[in-house]
């Protein structure tokens, strides 16, 4: 085996967005959508090799939709559990993200990469 492998899912702005679309992607995506360079480029700069990227956006949309629908289905129970304000905040956040996905602004990708043995590190 090489010096180690990484595999991770990440939500990020779609490539080729206009500045205003990019701002919306950052605003409407999860709070950690902050990278301003493609992850492949960041991995290359950090010395990773054998970088591969798989688009998982379709499944991302399906799961986002399912969270909204299942939470709506159990509305009364969830409101009892977390309160109406928190329930509505979560649903609003999920719908905003789903719209950003459906509008082509947000994507989710699976990235894999390896670290050459001589430069293997965890930082």
């Amino acid at each position: 085996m090489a010096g180690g492998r990484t595999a991770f899912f990440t939500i990020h702005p779609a490539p080729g967005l206009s500045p205003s679309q990019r701002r919306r992607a950052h605003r409407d995506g999860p709070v950690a959508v902050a990278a301003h360079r493609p992850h492949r480029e960041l991995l290359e700069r950090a010395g990773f090799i054998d970088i591969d990227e798989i688009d998982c956006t379709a499944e991302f949309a399906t799961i986002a939709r399912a969270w909204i629908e299942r939470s709506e289905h159990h509305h009364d129970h969830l409101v009892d559990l977390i309160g109406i304000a928190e329930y509505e905040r979560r649903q609003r956040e999920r719908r905003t993200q789903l719209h950003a996905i459906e509008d082509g602004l947000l994507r989710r990708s699976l990235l894999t990469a390896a670290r050459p043995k001589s430069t293997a590190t965890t930082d």
Partner: protein
Amino acid sequence: MVTREEHETRQKFGDRYAEDRTDVVRQIERAVIGSEWGVNGYTTVRQADLLAELLHLGPGMRLLDLGSGCGWPGLYLAARTGCQAVLSDVPLEGLRRALARADTEQVADRVTAVASSARALPFQTASFDAVVHTDMLC
């Protein structure tokens, strides 16, 4: 030193991880993700299994899960593949739940939790064979 971002993360997710895991909450998670591991994100069981495959995880392998929450997917991967796992995150409540689940899953001897930001990990170079995270570094 705790940054403002870490403080906010600890507050937001700590409160969420402390919520009751009622039967209905488990039912929702099972319907959406296919699991009952306290997941509130987008990584399905099928995708977690894909991570195991891509990282060639198995007994003796050392896995680091960054932003592990309540143990998804790092703890699940340890239970499923036999690898060792270090779970790392900022909110303590998630790590507590993960370690309790490690006992239940009978993998406590192969799972460690470290309260740390991914920006300043307390590990030596080449401590792990594999690193995973899900929607943390966006």
